[in-house]
């Protein structure tokens, strides 16, 4: 399995999620995605992510719900939360939950560089959760090379 830091994208919009995945999979990180708060919470319960890119404008408030529940469930997690939002939406940003906010429309280069730089310096927990699956980005890469065999 790859030792690169893992990054989780939490985005309910299919097109945006696909775009973020495409951008970040070319960075030296393993990328997973979640479309709902439940899906995201399931993923962070199994794997320690260095960084999460979370859209605060997700359908059903999924982004905020995920962040709040995640911090409640795993207060010691070191995951660096980089939020994205439409600046027109006035959302309270709790400094205990979120590290920084990027406004939409996203500056793609900035986002990619921030993820690359920050994910590699986030402290790894003393006993990290063993991620059960390869990152989606690894699977995609192997599929493209024709070397992926599903279990």
């Amino acid at each position, binding site marked *: 399995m790859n030792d690169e830091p893992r990054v989780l994208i939490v985005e309910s919009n299919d097109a945006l999620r696909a775009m973020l995945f495409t951008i970040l999979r070319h960075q030296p990180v393993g990328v997973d995605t979640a479309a709902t708060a439940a899906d995201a919470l399931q993923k962070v319960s199994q794997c320690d992510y260095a*960084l999460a890119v979370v859209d605060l404008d997700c359908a059903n408030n999924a982004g905020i719900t995920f962040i709040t529940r995640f911090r409640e469930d795993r207060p010691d997690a070191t995951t*660096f939360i*980089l*939020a994205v939002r439409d*600046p027109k939406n006035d959302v309270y*940003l*709790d*400094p*205990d*939950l*979120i*590290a*920084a*906010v*990027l*406004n939409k429309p996203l500056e793609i*280069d*900035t986002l990619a*560089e*921030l993820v690359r*730089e*920050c994910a*590699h*310096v*986030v*402290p790894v927990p003393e006993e990290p959760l063993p991620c059960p699956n390869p990152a989606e980005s690894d699977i995609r890469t192997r599929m493209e090379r024709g070397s992926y065999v599903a279990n």
Partner: protein
Amino acid sequence: MRHEKLILIVDDDDAIRALLTTVLRRRGYPVDAARNGVEAMELLGTRQYALVILDLMMPRMNGYEVLEHLGRLPVMTRPFVLVLTAGLEQRKFDTNLVVGTIQKPFDIELLVDTVAGCLVAAEGAQLPPMPTAMPEDTN
């Protein structure tokens, strides 16, 4: 665009330091970074900074101690200071030293705009005084 004014980021959180450094370097600002007040003091002793972005809660000399040191410097050599806060600090800052606070979580765009504004102000503050009279015409 390449800027000339040096910025010092002081924060013990590696990811926050990486975030601030990355964002500001992308905008063309020359940036140094320190992990605590001790490292900051070492850098402040060797280079002239126009702006210090300072976290308050740090091990090995916190931000308040760095502010005390900066407050003792002559006004013309003092850098401007932006303090990073979590919004809970009640302390009143010396407004001759601290030009503003940036509350976490950082709005990246706002942060960059604030830094740009501070550097423009710093440039103005360090302009040589205007002559009070024109030199005499020797012709």
